[in-house]
């Protein structure tokens, strides 16, 4: 197994900068997720690691070995594609055996290794079938088996669940993670789905506009986003972000609302941003609670019943909408006034100019 190191790796397509120079180290046995919206450079990064895409500048090391200019087949990595890329004219079994045959493994070796991965993924009943007879989930299982069979130094996966129905996606997500717990193979996994990233990653690399926004564990990116982009992107819905202005021991918010601050935090914010500075207040939907005597108020814009909980959308004024997660029994009429409170330890502050998180945020 292997560590992967990217040093100042950059990719340009003509004038278009697809990936700005970036540094990233992926440790041995780690499951790292590259997360970002479409066009953020995450897939290009993965393809550069695999060698399917050339590097414009910078270096890539696999276990300390410089692989920047190596052909994909010489890098000892396996790639799992979104659309499976199974060879349609071969059976599932032949597909799985193919990489070993390409390496010139003996017939016994091939049989033994294929048996091993087939047992691991429980797909023995599929071996004689052609890919077009398989369901999406089974196709991806066969593709995973084909990647595993070579025992590569690292796995690269490009949205492997993206083409699956919601029905299979949830269970395949758990399967891939179980497989990783079992094998501890270094894995780089690309997705645009923050739920997948949170559920699967040991660490998450969040990308946007061709550069890294934050690298951290699921808890770090969820509770302490480094900037507004991450705050908005992670979570469903994302973090509530409301523009306000510092005013002594409180933050003035839209529509006459004011958020009281503990004295030390008010001081820290004033030191960081300046007195009377503009500030963005961020809080997760579950960190707000409907409360008749709440300090903040708004009107119900829409109320969504999710079965297990209710998501209440409250408008402060015509521009600011906040989402509040409440119990499954909560029922609210549209345009009804509501009051709510925020859990002080879970409030985050951002600088509206730089869009970065302000130092002095409390930590849970």
């Amino acid at each position, binding site marked *: 197994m292997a560590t992967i190191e990217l040093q100042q790796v950059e990719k340009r397509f003509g004038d278009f900068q697809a990936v700005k120079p970036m540094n990233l180290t992926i440790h041995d046995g780690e499951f790292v997720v590259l997360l970002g919206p479409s066009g953020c450079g995450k897939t290009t990064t993965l393809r550069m690691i695999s060698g399917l895409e050339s590097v414009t500048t910078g270096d890539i090391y696999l276990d300390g070995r410089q692989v920047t200019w190596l052909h994909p087949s010489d890098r000892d990595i396996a790639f799992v594609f979104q659309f499976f890329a199974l060879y349609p004219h071969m059976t599932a079994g032949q597909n799985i055996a193919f990489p070993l045959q390409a390496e010139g493994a003996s017939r016994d070796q091939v049989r033994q290794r294929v048996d091993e991965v087939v047992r691991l993924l429980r797909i023995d009943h599929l071996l004689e079938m052609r890919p077009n007879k398989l369901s999406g989930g089974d196709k991806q299982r066969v593709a995973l088996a084909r990647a595993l069979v070579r025992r590569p130094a690292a796995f690269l996966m490009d949205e492997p669940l993206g083409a699956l129905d919601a029905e299979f996606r949830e269970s395949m997500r758990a399967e891939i993670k179980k497989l990783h*717990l079992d094998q501890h193979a270094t894995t780089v996994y690309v997705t645009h*789905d923050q739920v997948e990233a*949170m*559920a699967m990653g040991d660490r998450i690399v969040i990308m946007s506009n061709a550069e890294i926004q934050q690298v951290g564990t699921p*808890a770090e990116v969820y509770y302490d986003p480094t900037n507004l982009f991450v705050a908005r992107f992670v979570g469903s819905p994302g973090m509530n972000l409301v523009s306000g202005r510092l005013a002594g021991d409180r933050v003035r918010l839209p529509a006459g609302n004011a958020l009281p601050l503990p004295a030390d935090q008010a001081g820290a914010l004033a030191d960081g941003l300046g007195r009377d500075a503009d500030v963005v207040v961020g809080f997760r939907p579950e960190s707000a609670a409907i409360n008749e005597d709440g300090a903040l108020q708004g009107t119900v814009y829409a109320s*969504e019943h999710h079965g297990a909980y209710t998501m209440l959308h409250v408008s402060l004024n015509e521009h600011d909408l906040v989402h509040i997660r409440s119990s499954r029994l909560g029922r609210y009429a549209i345009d009804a006034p509501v009051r709510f409170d925020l859990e002080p330890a879970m409030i985050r502050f951002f600088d509206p100019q730089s869009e970065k998180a302000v130092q002095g945020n409390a930590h849970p």
Partner: protein
Amino acid sequence: MSNIALERITKRFGDVTALDNVSFAVDDGEFFVLLGPTGAGKTTTLRIIAGLEAQDAGTVSFDGQSLANVTPADRDVAFVFQQYSLYPTMTVYDNLAFPLRSPLRRLNESEIQARVHEAAEKLLITHLMDRKTANLSGGEMQRVSIGRAIVRHPRVFLMDEPLSNLDAKLRESLRVELQHLQKSAHSTTLFVTHDQIEALTMADRIGVLDEGRLVQVGTPDDIYDRPANTFVARLVGTPRINLLAAEPANGAIQIRDSQLKLPIPDRPLPPAFQVGVRPEDIAISPGGAFAGDVVLTEPLGVETIVHIGAGGATLLSLVPGMVPVHPGDAVRFDVAPDRLHLFDPSGSRL
């Protein structure tokens, strides 16, 4: 606005029965969602109501009047498609004005302009008026599509998975806007989706379709809390409901092929059945009545999915927040006894 009634609609394509004796009614001003997996017959239902497809048997009526022999143009419905319904060669304004310029309506340009602007303001797309629709983002396109539907003041709105092609964040925000718009205008809306979250969050009532048959009609609460069968139970809720084969044994529910026993409800039970437990009804607590091992954790931020191996079965539990348990940990948990769902072996609710 009108109400919609479907009576005993059947539609076959060759040997395939797409709709089998489907009857339901959408009340005036109601937001009704047809929910089902791909191929369940949702879109066919919508197309039959719009007149784009002819049923083999049954009647569709608006306000009690049958629509037999009424052309799509004369039905006065607005149809929002999943994609591809904006004309790429026209500007946004011309797209919005297109339904109003129909020879059926005989509106003059100043009336058209007023109605287009009214709709555009509601949807915040006034700044896009002169753009060609090919240059719009997915969200902007779907706003214009909705605009083209509301500009007409039609009798009913028919929406065919209008949010499916958008990314997750955009889908969330348009979902809320659409709901707000519908609730403010009290427009009769029939909305088709395969996404259970869209159905639960937007609908006044949901109709669940399975292979051309309507298996349950009810409020989101009915569908979620009292699913008519295992198909519906598995269709709604994420992560999916835990469904386990079971039998009664010594005053408890014995989960088959395991040592797990659940409390028995106070009513007669058949010798074999299935028991369903929603993941949020399994709570991890130090004093829990059951013991198990953590197989896998999936932290989602607001909550964590914990896969628990207990007595040979695997249960999914949904726990608030980021819980500090790891694969291999021993845990104790409780199952909410009043939230068990029981189904007979064929899948119908007991």
